[in-house]
């Protein structure tokens, strides 16, 4: 199971990084979302994988999983949403300011464009 989660996190971060390296805003948003999943799962994994032991105190439970990573990840998920929302609006604003959805400044106005840093 540990190896499977490791593969999943590796896949998520690899694909996330690849998408974040794209030249248009929307793939970057997708990439960031994938990377957030990876990071949240990684943080969560630092409490190790425990089955059927939620950190809800009860008389019947014999043991509990580590609640601290869960508390950390819970706020991370919500803040991740805040960040996604922010960059989505940023992408829309960029679209309205520059007329296209390229992540860099308007191609002709920067040196990056001249050096072929477009794709």
């Amino acid at each position: 199971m540990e190896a499977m989660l490791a593969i999943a996190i590796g896949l998520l971060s690899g694909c996330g990084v690849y998408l974040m390296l794209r030249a248009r805003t929307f793939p970057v948003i997708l990439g960031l979302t994938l990377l957030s999943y990876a990071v949240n799962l990684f943080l969560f994994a630092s409490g190790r994988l425990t089955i059927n032991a939620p950190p809800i105190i009860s008389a019947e439970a014999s043991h509990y999983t580590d609640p601290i990573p869960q508390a950390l990840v819970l706020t991370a998920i919500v803040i991740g949403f805040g960040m996604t929302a922010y960059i989505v609006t940023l992408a829309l604003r960029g679209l309205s300011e520059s007329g296209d959805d390229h992540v860099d400044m308007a191609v002709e106005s920067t040196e990056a464009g001249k050096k072929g840093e477009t794709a």
Partner: protein
Amino acid sequence: MIENSPYAFLLPLALLTAFAGVLLPLLAESHGRKLAAIAAGAVMAVSLALLVPLFALVVSGQTVVVPVEWLPDYGFNLAFRLDGLGMLFTILILGIGLLVVLYAYYYLPDKDKLGRFYALLLLFMSAMLGIVLSENLLMMVVFWEITSLSSFLLIAYKSEAYESRIAARMALVVTGGGGLALLAGIILLGQVAGSYELSQVIAAADLIKADPLYPLILTLVLLGAFTKSAQFPFHFWLPNAMAAPTPVSAYLHSATMVKAGVFLLARLYPVLSGTDAWLISVSAIGAITLVYGAYMAMYRDDFKGLLAYSTISHLGLITLLFGLSTPMSVVAGVFHIINHAIFKASLFMAAGIIDHECGTRDMRRVNGLFKLMPITATLAMVAAASMAGVPLLNGFLSKEMFFTEAVLFTGFDSSHLILPVFATIAGILAVAYSARFIHDVFFNGDPVDLPRQPHEPPRWMRVPVEILVLLCLVVGMFPARSVGTLLATAAGATLQAPLPAYDLKIWHGFNLALVMSVVALAGGVALYAQRATLIRWNDKLPSLNSKTGFERLHRFMAAQASRILAWLDNGSLQRYIALLCAFVLIYGGWASYRNMSLSDASFSGASSSPIDIAAMIALAAMALGTIGTTLLHHRRLLAVILIGIVGLVVSLTFVRFSAPDLALTQLSVEVVTIVLMLLALYYLPQTTPKESSRLRVGRDVLLAAGIGGGMALATYALLTSPFSTISDFYLQQSVPGGGGSNVVNVILVDFRGFDTLGEIAVLAMAALGAHALLDQLRLLPPKHDSAGRQWAQEPHPLFLRMLMQPLLPLALAVSVYIFLRGHNLPGGGFVAGLVTGVALILQSLAGGLSFAENRLPRSYPPLLGLGLAFAAGIGLVSWFFSRPFLTSAHGHFHLPLLGDIELASVIIFDLGVYLVVVATVLLILSELGKLHKGEQT
């Protein structure tokens, strides 16, 4: 030796007064420039008056040390020290400072309100005082850097002039750079000595000199001292700093700035001197500077420039004296610090008067002023004679001491003659440039084409010069009675050893030193007489100009910096992310390679749980979603659907591994995120063009594979390494301490409530940022989709609308339920907020904007504020019960209808969380929706 008196507190108080007083001239400025000057003078006078009661102690041989603990673990304490050396400099800094304040009032033009000038001058003065009154060496370095910064501002005071700005920048780079070297040197020194307190560093002197780090420490400290006191080859900033107003030059280049360098030599003399390295490096640099400065001074046509090079030369002399390292040469060095400060300050001030009256400083035009301003001329001539070392004046005494030392010195094995010859040459040159100053400016025919008609300056402008020239005479004629005690105290503190026997008097009988003095006087006058030949000869020499070299180096470095910056920061997000990823890969790879042992242990160590069918299906689904999203990201709608699968599997992972709260949160965030992305896709292009080059794709795949592989390895290493946790406390205390059985929720709202408060504040900020970005945003709606089909203009589906209306109260009830049970069972403010947000947004999607407009708030930022206020407010309430911020309380209640219920005060906190989350979700989604409306009307 070290004694604490009941008046010791005056020491930090004086320094505090000086720094606090910096603001006074700025405040006084509006009541006239005179008041600004009075304020500045008052600050200096009060600081001096506070220190005077301690002087008696110091003169009796005691050292006042006032330690104030600040960061003892790092050896950084605010420790103050007043000893003889500090006392001497305090008197110079504050005494000459007072004269400069008076002088500047008349020197600077009437239209200058002076507030800024005096504030900067006071800042500089305070920092100088800080240097000389520091017991802690790190504190001294801090003050040292403040002098570099404030002198930058003072030199650039005429900031509209290009020349001033260049000169100030040069001074800052040289002295500030030297300050960094000094900082490194002092840190090493402190580490070797085991303390940064000067007393203990002095006690550890032998240890330091024997340490292998000693040569490095010495080099770094000397770099600091030599840059500050303009020693060759760092001297070039000083002549350029003549672009400063003359009161600044008079202050910085007589008693303060450049003297900080020699002060440092004196201060660390007992620690670092006594080795061959010190002897050779300090005296060689001093000797070169002494002769070079004097030689250059002869050829200046600008009399302020002449004084500047003469300053360099005299600083070289002082450095040389400290370098020779005999007790008597140190006494001579300290004596020359006093004498040079007095005559050079008066000369700069006189030069300023002449400049002020003539409008130029060119000695080829400023001639014959003796007839026009006889009093000033006489004063300047006396001071210049002192600079030349004419008997009966103070400059003669210390120069005579120097000559004696040069003759007696036996430290250089090879030749005993080299030093006396050097000294005599320097003496001849000093007489020659002094003669040029006197003869050219005050005699030598009539003024040539002056911009102004010179006459005597205002009465009070001359007073500072008169006082200083009087001092030249008094010290010159009655040395023992005037400065004998001060000199003995200061030299004693410098040596940290008994003083040698010496006699401060004018006539020492016929000896070699006297012969050298006579040769210097006669030779200097003769040299000046031959100046025409000399100037012709000098013009043929290749010019040795480190100023242009510095400028070239500066431009080169600036150009290189711009190039690196242009490469790093070229406005391309793609490049930033690629660089960031490459850095993470290289650094992460290197770090894991270094810590191989750790990963070895972890890969082999712990057991792993078995794999089952459900997990394999989940992994397959996630891989499908992730890879699908990546491969098909050009078709954006499809990519959003695929990424939804990934989110779902992540939620299921949380369910599987005992994290119900996370699963709930992830699920509701997933819904909101997908809605958000769909709304954005309405405006953004439906497809991504295929524009990446193969090379680019290859590079990105490599980076992605590296990072992905690294993350997978790191995760596996983490999961299989031995596990220990600090959670037991939370698990045990959740019910008794927090009144809730859902430990995750109790941690969020109670144990770590302060963190959560910060996190919802971040969320609120993101929402406000989005709000600002969406404000006034105009976007054209697409007419058709990517395939060219017209957008459907149909109304909101009837079926959905009908279904939603009964669903809304149900959804709201669910969110209330989730909210209330959150403390004990999975749920809580975050999840409830998301559920409410989703319910309301679905409602507006189904019912149209008019529905939303009628029922939802128009503006969300106040709601964000309200949420934060709830969360922070309940935290504040605990203060009324004399408890720390965010202390919780809980109890058992019996409520009608609901029955028994466990209520905790943190429910209010959670309500704040809830409100912030609801407001964030609604703000972003409804404002995105309103864009749509904007285009329809």
